[in-house]
């Protein structure tokens, strides 16, 4: 009798449903949960924003600052941002309980001060990103480094091409 056996099976197995939310649920370490940006590392390069499928991350410029804005309400927890971030600044955590009565809990803003172009005065890159690119392309002379891409294009081409372009990941 199939049904008797199944009944016995159920009794021998006991309860399998969790007492969640009264008891915690375990997830693996590399679970794709809430993404968090480390504001101490992020350079504001914007790589994550252009990879993010639902545009949950947007990079905006507000006066002196570049703002990396992560809105969890749009996030699909795919982890593409983590894949492409050159600094390892954004990581998906194991946290998944994101329901909240407070909309602000769903936003993360990373505000990064920008460098002004010494020629035209326009803020064009974050300090941190500039320093970061310096580490990779050490030959640029100080003066040109502080030019925005447009002004640099107009300047005489006696520097290594592309090396100082602050908008590259």
């Amino acid at each position: 009798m199939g049904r008797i056996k199944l009944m016995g099976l159920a009794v021998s197995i006991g309860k399998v449903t969790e007492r969640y939310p009264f008891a915690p649920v375990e997830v693996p370490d590399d679970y794709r949960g809430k993404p968090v940006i480390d504001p101490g590392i992020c350079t504001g390069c914007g790589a994550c924003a252009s990879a993010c499928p639902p545009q949950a991350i947007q990079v905006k410029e507000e006066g002196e600052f570049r703002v990396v804005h992560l809105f969890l309400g749009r996030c699909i927890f795919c982890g593409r941002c983590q894949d492409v971030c050159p600094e390892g600044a954004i990581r998906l955590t194991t946290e998944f309980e994101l329901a909240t009565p407070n909309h602000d809990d769903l936003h993360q803003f990373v505000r990064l001060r920008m460098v002004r172009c010494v020629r035209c005065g326009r803020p064009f890159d974050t300090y941190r990103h500039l320093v970061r690119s310096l580490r990779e392309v050490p030959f640029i002379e100080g003066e040109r480094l502080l030019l925005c891409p447009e002004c640099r294009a107009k300047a005489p081409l006696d520097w290594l091409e592309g090396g100082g372009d602050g908008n590259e990941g």
Partner: protein
Amino acid sequence: MGRSTLEGRFRVIDVSPDEVAEVVRELFEDGCYYATGMGVDERPLNGRFAVYHAINCPKRGVYVILRLTAPENRPSVPSITPVLRGAEWAEREAHDMVGVTFENHPNLERLILPEDWPDGVYPLRKDFPYNRKMAGTEGTAGVRGERHDEATMSVPLGPYHPLLHEPEYFELYVREDRIVGADYRGFHVHRGMEKLAESRMTLNQIPFLAERICGICGCTHSAAYCQAVEEAAGVEVPERALYIRSLMLEVERIHSHLLWFGVACHLLGFDSGFMHFWRAREYVMDIAELITGNRKTYGINLVGGVRRDLSGEKIQKTLKLLELAEGESREVIDNVVGMKELIARMEGVGVLRRKDAREIGVVGPVARASGIDTDVRRDHPYAAYGDLDFKVPVYRGCDVLSRFLVRVDETFESFSLVRQILENLPDGEIINEEYSLPYMEFGLGSTEAPRGEDVHMVLTGGENQVYRWHPRAPTYNNLPAVPLMLEGEDVADAPIIIASIDPCFSCTDHVSIVDAGSGRVLWRGPLLEGVERLRR
């Protein structure tokens, strides 16, 4: 090391309007069936509209793509529906979305778009901006359907019904306890995915959108999309990536089938069965979580490969979970099959004859339960399936029980496939990112989803974009068969019959609004009107 598994998967043939009907008839007689079709606005390229009919020829292991074009000022091509009725929906869809007219189509009415959509506006044409909002109007009542006599009651099933889990609408015409006729009206959840992808997403963002076509078998969609692009761009995919893709596709199939068994039990009033199946399924969800970082929507596929590798430790854990899942599934299935009242409710119910199944072009377990021996994994090997060993179960009962049994056999084949994959996983890279995207290259990717053949067609757009993307979920081909299955059955059996195709309505709907099956036009606001009719 790397290889393109998809070589020779399809052949695009430009056909002239005069010969298309003849070609289609010959293909059908040769054992091919209508897979899907799309309309394309190719005006920026050559000033013409095009229609691509994808015909699956399982015996020859190839998709024949018949391409018809028509000039901008007279966008009209002959319909192939009179020769092959499986083409009906696709042609109506192309008519609504791209504005191509099909001569001699038996039923080319306004279908895809809502009744109050303005004439002459075609959302998938390239001059229609993706974010354009149409002025909202009140929903207008459609034409009243066929009238039945006094003794016939019309019973609405949907748009909201506990059986459906998604907004869809079946109208059953019932005399006493028998269904004498049935109509289907679907596509209430249009999400404009194609437009979104074509207008504002990049090549490697679309897999994540494709995955969200379906909440149950999403991985198969992202795989089919990636394959279509890889095919178009000639991307070599590393072996290891192909194996991991197959692995996740099979994990997905097991979870999907176990889910379905549970739902079937629930529909037959046996809720304990539901719990037993879902308990076994939970191990499979754990496997997915372990490998991909989440229980569902694995997010594993990208063009050129996969995103996550498997460590030895994960393989060991997976094998352990797999053993538990297989053991418990086996035990539960064996015992459930011993429950006579359940089997009695599936046997001989919801019959779909082989002839109808062929003409409509049903796919997957529905086709295999009606004696059609087809499986994309075997007929058009993709991912790692060419190297793997598996059987394709075929039953000839044509009823709900056969569909149940096909899924039972498939589930255990999948367990064996997962084991084979884990044991033979080749070493190497998991993704190839060195490729360039050509302009206007056609690609077709197809997979055997848990519900049947899943086809994605892509026209590349160069510059990290796709020009045209047309996904077709299996339910799109299976649904038109449901009214046939329902006719003459007991009302009490309607739920299990509808469920027997394992319908996935949102997947079908991502593109259009159609009423079909019998082709009769239904009316809106069904529940209220149904009630009103009763009161008269």
